[in-house]
């Protein structure tokens, strides 16, 4: 009975979406608190997921993080992105306002299909991290031809 996870997935994805929206509500409150310097964040960075036919693309807004500070791990079922973003003020200046969050982040996604780890790339440009996960060959959609039955 539990072999068909596809039956349960839509239910869990509804709750995932609810949790994400609730997380976003907390973001508005957390940004106003000046004392919160570092917090374990599930909602920073903001990540957009796109399906490009042959590959799955994740774009994360990660200003202020260097390439070596990311840790991306890929298992057959999940992708995990973690790292740390520090916002240390420069020496000798007083802080008038600090809104940019310092965050130690870990975010995971369950992949909807098999991906080819060899052809997965991650590039960082202008503070945007783009992870491109190429779909495995047998996960590509295939055309099925219809034959008339005599």
């Amino acid at each position, binding site marked *: 009975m539990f072999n068909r996870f596809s039956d349960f997935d839509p239910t869990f994805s509804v709750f995932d979406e609810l949790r994400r929206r609730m997380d976003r509500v907390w973001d508005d409150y957390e940004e106003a608190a000046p004392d919160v310097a570092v917090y374990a964040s599930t909602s920073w960075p903001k990540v957009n997921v*796109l*399906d490009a036919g042959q590959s799955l693309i994740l774009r994360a807004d990660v200003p202020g993080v260097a390439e070596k500070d990311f840790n991306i791990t890929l298992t057959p079922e999940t992708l995990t992105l973690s790292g740390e973003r520090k916002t240390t003020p420069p020496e000798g200046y007083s802080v008038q306002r600090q809104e940019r969050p310092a965050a130690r982040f870990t975010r995971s996604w369950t992949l909807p299909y098999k991906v080819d780890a060899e052809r997965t790339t991650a590039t960082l440009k202008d503070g945007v991290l783009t992870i491109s996960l190429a779909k495995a060959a047998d996960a590509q959609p295939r055309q099925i031809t219809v034959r008339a039955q005599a």
Partner: protein
Amino acid sequence: MSQINVIRPGSNPNPVERVQKRPPTVTPLVDVFENATEILVWADVPGATLDGIDVHVDKGQLTLFARRADRAAGDAVAKAAPVETEQRTYDYQRVFAVPAGIDATKIEAELSAGVLKVRLPKSEALKPRRIEVKGS
């Protein structure tokens, strides 16, 4: 009796007064630091490029504007179908009130790793001065 103009969409034939349509913008988060000689403003603007940055000070207002380059990305990303969108890719704009003593000609800005760092040097009038205490 003062005239009250009621604005009804489409009823004003004068195109100058109609609200200009502009691409939507989002407010970037900033850190502001200060010392005796300058004010620093660091803004999170991921996706912005140098040629899309506009920083200027005018009448006591500092305006930061950064155009987000991947809005017009012509690569596979632009044609991909969104599965989950947590952040819309809008341009960045933020306006601050700044003290009148900022020297507008000496503003410097640099962009690295998606963080815009603006340096606003204070003119002499704004720098703190020591007041001598005389004993009697």
